[in-house]
């Protein structure tokens, strides 16, 4: 299951997604460094990360179309 994290820098709100915690920490820090000239601590990223919702299954999508 993928992981995601939302940036709470004022005026930002970008959501970063990754396949694992390790990749999420790297991706978050790339964003925070480039967008805000800062960094985010690994433990802080992990504490604020959440699981990506499951993608809709084909059957659900069909039912949603009705």
């Amino acid at each position, binding site marked *: 299951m993928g992981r995601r994290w939302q*940036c*709470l*820098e*004022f005026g930002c709100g970008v959501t970063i997604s990754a396949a694992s915690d390790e990749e999420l920490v790297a991706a978050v820090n790339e964003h925070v460094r480039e967008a*805000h*000239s*800062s*960094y985010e*601590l*690994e*433990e*802080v990223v*992990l*504490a*604020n990360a959440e699981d990506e919702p499951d993608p809709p299954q084909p059957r659900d999508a069909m039912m949603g179309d009705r």
Partner: protein
Amino acid sequence: MTTFSELRPVESRFRLDPEIMAGAIYRKYEKATRKIWNAKLLDYEQDAADWARLTEPQRMGIATITVRFEAGEQEVTNELGPMLAAAHALGRFDWVMFISTFMLEEARHSEFFTLWHARVPQLLTPAEKAGYWPAREHTVDPLGRFAAGEPVYEGLPRYGRQLSAAVESGDETVIERAFVQFATLYCVWVEGVLTMPSYEIVIDTTELWDALPTLRQGFRNILGDEGRHITFGTEACRILIAKNPEYEALAHGVIDEYRGNAIGMLEYQRNVPGLDLQKYQRQKVRHYLNRCREMGVTADQSLVEQILDPELDFVVGVEAG
């Protein structure tokens, strides 16, 4: 005759089980045991050579931060005892395990700054270090609306005494309330918001000057440890607030008590030449909102607005009153 097993059933003597070992706080303990570093093994020679070529304003800017850190790390090492006792009283063995690493790390941070001061600027005595310490009373809101307190040197001992008294009372609710207040002040507000700009200032500045690599490495090592401390405090508060939502108001109350410390950069954070202070001020908002998200509490939007308000700021060097 009562047997020892009747006094203390054998099953009650085992505390660590797979459920605890799968939890977030045990994981922090386990990570702390893997991330041990030794301040004595760092090389201070390049920093000493760099120090010799820095200008006096550059030296003053760095040393006003590092002396605060040395004393602050010693203060928090000394004030963590009540938190450990409270974790024990609440029967939370994973918290006890983690806090044992927390105390060790604060002690190591104290040692790092003492060594760095001895080997780089050669500040050895309390009097020499005090010479780089601008008084908190010199941080003044010119409009008189906010005052900057001393949460480390006044607040932590006071909330620590309250937590110790709560532990003595043996009342679980009283202990939990005092724990939320102590953890909010220490882990959430001091470590998790107010001090964060200082790390960035030192890392940014030493990179910009291409100087003091060991100081920068020490700050990075400390930040790794602090990430666990901060998120331990917020996780413990989240657990207790989820158990009793009335505790959320206690967390906001402690932050509100030291709200003034966040509305501008403090005297010791403003001394490094050439800093974009507004950048660090903006980042306090991110740190505060992260802490609220971690604790599962609603952020105080008026505090966010005050931190960001460019018309609210401190001036330094004016005698209070």
